[in-house]
């Protein structure tokens, strides 16, 4: 049961990451490969502030969200001039820059050694002790993210995002300051990713830069694409699949000598087959 609870916690964290990135990639059509950077900002905010400065989890999370929003605002201004593949490359670059900061500003982040001993959150003076209690917290945040995402995509703001995705120049003709819309959604997505980072840091209780590298951004993007672009439910589905599938494969009886390698092959093959069958993702509205 504990193991399933653990997987459920990880699934809810990645569901938050998926839903938030989908707002940018799926709805606004911005191929962002820097989501792990904001995930890391949230994680490090909690790691640094709770361990070294005695902040509570919720205060540290709020500060992390503000930092992520500020970073997103800046990145949005610089990358706003680019489109399509060039936008992706610029976002790549930002992830690498943020990763380098985590790795090199060792006086603050402890560099490659990472930050251990991150405490669990306290609610009304009582610390969360068990994984089951943490699961409740992470599900609450995931549900909040779901509600926020659905509210955005069903609103006129969401309509404008879809317009940007389809034909930004045509949308400007109607008076939309599309650059501002893109910046706003990027900031919202960054703040939600920071929440996921806060949860991850406090759940695992140890973070290091390697968790927030470009690979992680690609992983999050992959789960969004698999789940389906421009579909909030799809991101939840994608997160659950990406977390559960490798774990399910642990139970498949491959020959022990090659079990690890066969699981990797099987995992890759299943993903490829899923994308061949549904290139727009399981619940997707459109293809990238």
């Amino acid at each position: 049961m504990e193991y399933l609870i653990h997987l459920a916690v990880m699934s809810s964290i990645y569901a938050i990451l998926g839903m938030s990135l989908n707002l940018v990639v799926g709805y606004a059509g911005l191929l962002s490969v820097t989501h792990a950077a904001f995930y890391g900002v949230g994680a490090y905010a909690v790691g640094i502030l709770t361990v070294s400065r005695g902040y509570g989890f919720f205060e540290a999370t709020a500060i992390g969200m503000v930092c992520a929003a500020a970073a997103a605002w800046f990145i949005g201004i610089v990358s706003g001039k680019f489109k399509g593949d060039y936008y992706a490359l610029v976002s790549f670059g930002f992830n690498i820059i943020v990763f380098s900061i985590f790795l090199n500003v060792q006086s603050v982040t402890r560099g490659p050694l990472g930050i251990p001993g991150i405490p669990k959150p306290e609610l009304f003076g009582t610390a969360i002790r068990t994984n089951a209690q943490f699961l409740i917290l992470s599900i609450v945040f995931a549900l909040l993210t779901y509600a926020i995402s659905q509210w955005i995509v069903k609103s006129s703001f969401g309509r404008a995002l879809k317009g940007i995705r389809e034909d930004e120049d045509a949308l400007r003709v109607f008076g939309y300051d599309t650059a501002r819309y893109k910046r706003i959604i990027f900031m919202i997505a960054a703040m939600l990713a920071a929440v996921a980072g806060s949860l991850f840091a406090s759940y695992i209780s140890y973070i290091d830069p390697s968790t927030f590298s470009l690979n992680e951004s690609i992983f999050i993007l992959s789960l969004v694409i698999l789940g389906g672009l421009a579909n909030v439910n799809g991101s939840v589905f994608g997160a659950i699949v990406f977390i559960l599938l490798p774990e399910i494969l642990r139970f498949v009886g491959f020959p022990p000598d090659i079990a690890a390698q066969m699981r990797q092959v099987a995992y890759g093959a299943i993903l490829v087959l899923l994308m061949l069958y549904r290139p727009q993702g399981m619940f997707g509205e459109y293809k990238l």
Partner: protein
Amino acid sequence: MKSEIRNEKEILLKLDDVHVHYGGVHALDGASVAIDEGEIVALMGPNGAGKSTVLKAIFGIAPVHSGEVLWHEKRFKPVPHEVVARGIAFVPQGRRVFKYLTVEENLEIGGFIVGDKKELARRMAEVMETFPALKAKRRTKSGTLSGGQQQMLAIARGLMVDPKVLLLDEPSLGLAPKIVKEVFENIKEINERHGTAIVVVEHNIKSILGIVDRAYVLAKGKVAAQGKPEELLSSGVLEKIFLGEK
């Protein structure tokens, strides 16, 4: 049908000696165009003459090197998301409706600058009356509409701001003759019903000259001829410009 510009002082929209450069290419080379209230004006000319560039210069999506764009005789620098607030609506070439959004959502986008929800609903109802085919498909994703219906939607979307000037870039492009006729009839109806000035770029000379008040003929980025349709047709200037004779 208005046949001439009534009074220089009442000119609604003017381009005065405008030069548009795309790098080394002079898309407009000192073009001057004037549009009066309530007129339908055509911009014609061979490919590369600068017709669409005139519209883009008005809307601020072409790099104006020199010259002036005037609105009610006052100079202004067009910025795309601000121009529409002045009452100038642009229907770009190729329809460019948002395929994954419904007809209604496309129209709502068109009415973005209309702050009041009631006013927006009123305009939508009015636009639906002008285009009954759209009313029947208001909840349909616009990507599933026919070419003609999409063109109507694109025009309807432009009308949502109740513009004083509607800029249409090749509205008949890719449409069957029967549909083209319908589209031009809609354009005429809009002008008569709402008093909207319309500037239309068109290749379909015969059809468009049947509904416009005046026309400009552009060649190599300059206005080569202008006047009433019957004057242009009888003078033979169109053949000269289109067929390249001096």
